């Protein structure tokens, strides 16, 4: 949940930080509050995980990594956490999550998004993951995207919506 001040800071930064030598001062001016307070609130949100990190996010497509495949794995439940940590650390994997199975249609419990310069490279990297998992790989698949049907991203559109239940 967010206090009103934190909500205002989230709204003011959702498009990114101002590219200015003193970005937190610019946000503070916009909100009419002290720059120290802005920094203190952001540090608090970093500490409690509401902000994961403040970072530069590269566009992997523009950097030449034009292929991506969602690799999905059926691994034993008692090993999934250990294996997820290993797969997540591979430098061609951008996301790695444990998700629920839906038997019989969907036996996979580990998801890893794999990036490469083309589909062959993605296939090769998935093969590397398979050999890394060994016997724990009880079946896997790669789902390549065929079409983007919608991409609006996650936006917090109204200050009074953030972290509050809708009435």
């Amino acid at each position, binding site marked *: 949940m967010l206090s009103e001040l934190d909500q205002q800071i*989230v709204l003011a930064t959702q498009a990114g930080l101002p590219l200015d030598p003193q970005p937190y001062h610019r946000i503070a001016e916009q909100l009419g509050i002290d*720059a120290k307070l802005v920094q203190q609130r952001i540090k608090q949100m970093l500490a409690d995980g509401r*902000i994961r*990190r403040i970072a530069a996010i590269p566009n992997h497509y523009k950097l030449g990594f034009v292929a991506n495949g969602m690799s999905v794995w059926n691994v034993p439940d008692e090993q999934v956490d250990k294996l997820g*940590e290993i797969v997540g*650390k591979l430098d061609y994997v951008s996301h790695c999550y444990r*998700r629920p199975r839906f038997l019989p249609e969907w036996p996979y419990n580990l998801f890893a998004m794999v990036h490469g310069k083309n589909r062959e*490279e993605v296939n090769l990297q998935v093969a590397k993951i398979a050999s890394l998992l060994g016997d724990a790989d009880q079946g896997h698949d790669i789902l390549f995207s065929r*079409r983007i049907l919608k991409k609006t991203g996650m936006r917090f559109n109204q200050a009074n919506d953030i972290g509050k239940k809708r009435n």
Partner: protein
Amino acid sequence: MKNKSVNFKNKPDSPASPLDATDRRIINALQYGFPVSDYPFQEAAASLKLSETELLERIKNMRENGLLTRFGPLYNAEKMGGALSLCAMIVAEEKFDKVAQQVNSFAQVAHNYERDHKMNMWFVLATQSIEEKQQTLEQIEQLTGYPVYDMPRQKEYFVGLFLNLEPVSQQAHDS
């Protein structure tokens, strides 16, 4: 050979990209994090052995030409009280476009992809609360007539560098 500078634009299988070694260093370093202080660009620039002005200019350029999709805080929706889920559907080919339109009509659907699989529609649902998520799932099922497989993440594993852009020479050898 090791010190030879290889740019992405020299590689025939990549889209042209005007990234030089300094840009790559900046992306690699700032994927991890950025300071919260009075002069954070000055701080980040010092550890990259750049001037504050040059760092700001380079980040501005990379934002403008789309090499960076974002520069700023990354929020965790769940920790802010909201809910985020990956959802999948098995949709008949002839109904696909209509169902896509129906699913996309929900503001809570942030991304939607067609994928090569029997489970052919994959979308991300972002809501302000768990209750709203359940409601939206039910509404989507009613409107489309198809069941929705709700696959929220149960655990997130640590992901290191998003894209390892160094060392430069190895990038070329690997392809």
